[in-house]
């Protein structure tokens, strides 16, 4: 390992981190990797040698390969021939890692940002059954009552509503836990009737 005391190196490292962080997310190009919170570390190992740590949002995120390639390309363009991008899983990425600016951009883009400051896991919603019901259960319990003990704690508090990114109404309903990508849920606004994606909390 080379000595890291040279201020020029430190400045270069910061500059490279900025460049890598400014790479756009391939699936949500409105966000940069830094705003998404997936760029964990960038180290200048020596002249022309950089090591980057990247964490996926979801384990199966198919965009991670493109992200790595994009980072390598940008760093190559800025005079770093040798770029190693490693994927790290721990500590697990959380939607709380999205920066304030990232959340603002998501909302502007029409995607309701994830809610903050809560433990991860599905936010309970009462199951909204259609008009046909075989025999109504005596007391329709919220889904939280069904959660096993392992996750019940995470669903104890009353969740804040997901607001419509179009009109701001808090009167929105869940259509599907899984939308166009694994990280989003599909919802509909009951006020303006627009469907929208919600970046769900993990």
């Amino acid at each position, binding site marked *: 390992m080379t000595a890291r005391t040279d201020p020029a190196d430190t400045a270069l490292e910061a500059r490279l981190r900025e460049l890598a962080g400014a790479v756009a997310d391939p699936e949500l190009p409105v966000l940069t990797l830094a705003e998404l919170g997936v760029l964990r570390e960038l180290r200048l190992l020596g002249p022309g040698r950089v090591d980057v740590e990247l964490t996926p949002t979801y384990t*199966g995120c198919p965009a991670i390969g493109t992200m790595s390639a994009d980072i390598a390309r940008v760093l190559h363009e800025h005079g770093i021939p040798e770029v190693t991008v490693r994927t790290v899983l721990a500590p697990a990425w959380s939607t709380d890692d999205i920066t304030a600016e990232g959340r603002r951009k998501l909302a502007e883009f029409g995607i309701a940002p994830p809610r903050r400051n809560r433990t991860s896991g599905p936010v309970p919603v009462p199951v909204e059954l259609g008009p046909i019901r*075989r025999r109504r259960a005596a007391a329709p319990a919220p889904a939280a009552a069904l959660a096993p003990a392992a996750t019940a704690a995470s669903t104890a508090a009353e969740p804040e509503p997901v607001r419509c990114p179009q009109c701001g109404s808090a009167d929105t309903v869940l259509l599907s836990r899984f939308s166009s990508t694994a990280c989003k849920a599909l919802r509909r606004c009951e006020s303006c009737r627009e469907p929208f994606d919600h970046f769900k909390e993990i």
Partner: protein
Amino acid sequence: MSLTDPTSPESPQSPQSPEPSGNKAALALGDDALILSHRLGEWAGHAPELEEEMALANIALDLLGQARTLLSLVGEEDDLAFLREERSFRNVQLVEQPNGDFARTIARQLYFSTYQELLYGELAGGDEPISGITALAGKAVKETAYHRDHAEHWTLRLGDGTEESHQRMQRGLDTLWRYTGELFQPVAGVDVNWQAIRATWTSSVTAVIEQSTLTVPDGPQESPWAAGAGRQGVHTEPFGRLLAEMQHLHRSHPGASW
């Protein structure tokens, strides 16, 4: 007889060879994720509604990501997925069971995702230093919580739905019940309290089934007929056809790429 393609330049990983127990654990959990991912992928183009098409494919993608991470801890992921024979797979038999109708798929999801979330939760929360498996578990447990949530909601909707959906959901739960005992067979290298996982699994699944106006199956969770030996490489008849489908392309065109 080996099914390994003789034209393949390199022989595949040899999963029969003695391995550290950590690798056995990664192989077992990785195979669970891989095989269930493939089964769920079979729904693409056939799901009852568009939202379910997306949901099942997304769940399959999560599982595939877990499988890739886990199998990469053992060896070369493609070799392990595509070049092993049936007897070398260590997944539980539950995940290889055919999709059946939508209700049966949901029953399989309910049984398995409840188990997987508990197992990953235990692994992630243990005192062990961060290893490949615990890092994966800590990440995947958050995804699996959504899989369980999805299965619970559908169990409730189908169970407490129409006469027809109720009967189908009950049939799905009954059909797969005998594969649930195997879930709690200790896996070498997975240091968790299996009895506690079984107890929590049972109370959780029971609560969902009862809330859904359905009946917890009363048959044995393991019997001579349930075999219950997927972890030892003994699989059920439908598994061969699944492997043929999953491995055919890779074996027919060794080294092909997009």
